[in-house]
């Protein structure tokens, strides 16, 4: 149960955080160059987008759940299991956003799930 909560937090909060940050960056705009001042300016602009704060908050939750999981298991086990976010993303898209998920995407999700299963089986 404890493991389930930890991995669920990593997957759900991590995926949600990434989506929010991704959306925030689309609002904030593109970095015109690699100049440090331009990058700093872009970061400041991104911090003014509310999506960014929601995303960073969720990523923080996922981070502490990750620390908890890493104290219990090997990193080469924990990180592949977090790939379940692709499975969660597909199901979340269908159930909450009523997105249409193509057969090919389901195939990819199935492969990810199969890979995580292999990682679980190879745990010992």
């Amino acid at each position, binding site marked *: 149960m404890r493991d389930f909560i930890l991995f669920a937090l990593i997957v759900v909060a991590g995926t949600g955080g990434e989506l929010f940050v*991704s959306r925030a960056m689309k609002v904030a705009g593109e970095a015109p160059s690699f100049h440090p001042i331009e990058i700093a300016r872009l970061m400041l602009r991104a911090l003014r987008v509310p999506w960014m704060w929601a995303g960073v908050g969720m990523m923080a939750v996922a981070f502490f759940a*990750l620390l908890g999981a890493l104290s219990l298991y*090997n*990193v080469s086990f924990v990180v*592949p299991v977090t790939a379940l976010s692709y499975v969660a993303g597909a199901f979340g898209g269908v159930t909450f956003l009523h*997105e249409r998920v193509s057969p090919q995407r389901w195939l990819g999700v199935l492969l990810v799930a199969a*890979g995580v299963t292999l990682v679980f089986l190879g745990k010992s």
Partner: protein
Amino acid sequence: MSQHPPIHLKTYLMLAVMILAGPLGNVLLGKGMKNIGAPVIWPVAGLLHTAGMILASGSIWLGVLSLITFFVAYMLVLSWADYSFVQPASSLSYGVVALLGFLMLGERVSPMRWAGVAVICLGVFVVARTGPSTTRPSAQPAPQVPEPLQVTEQMQAAERV
């Protein structure tokens, strides 16, 4: 290639930073947490002790620094490329994390776990080959993203050969 060298270069450079810094950060966090041992989160005194141990760990701070590097590279890439393009490229980090776990922490990675990591990468690629149209928010004006389109064309061209 010669038409858009800056776009290619900066994209691949930032992807490389992501694929190295992300796994490195996770492995360093794993190292730090392994040193600390099982965290005590109750009673509150135990939680404070655990938090103190985490804050005092050099590996954790290095890991956080590495993850911040990853995060900045990730945000920069996302500011000009689509999530559905960045996602499969960064799936290589699952392989890198297993490799670094093995090399830096001496974790025993069984053949079945390697196979699992490979299948996960394959799955992420298949997920990403599907069109991004189902995920693109329609409320935003479409940003200029020549890079992913080009890559898709290249992949299609490669398929035809």
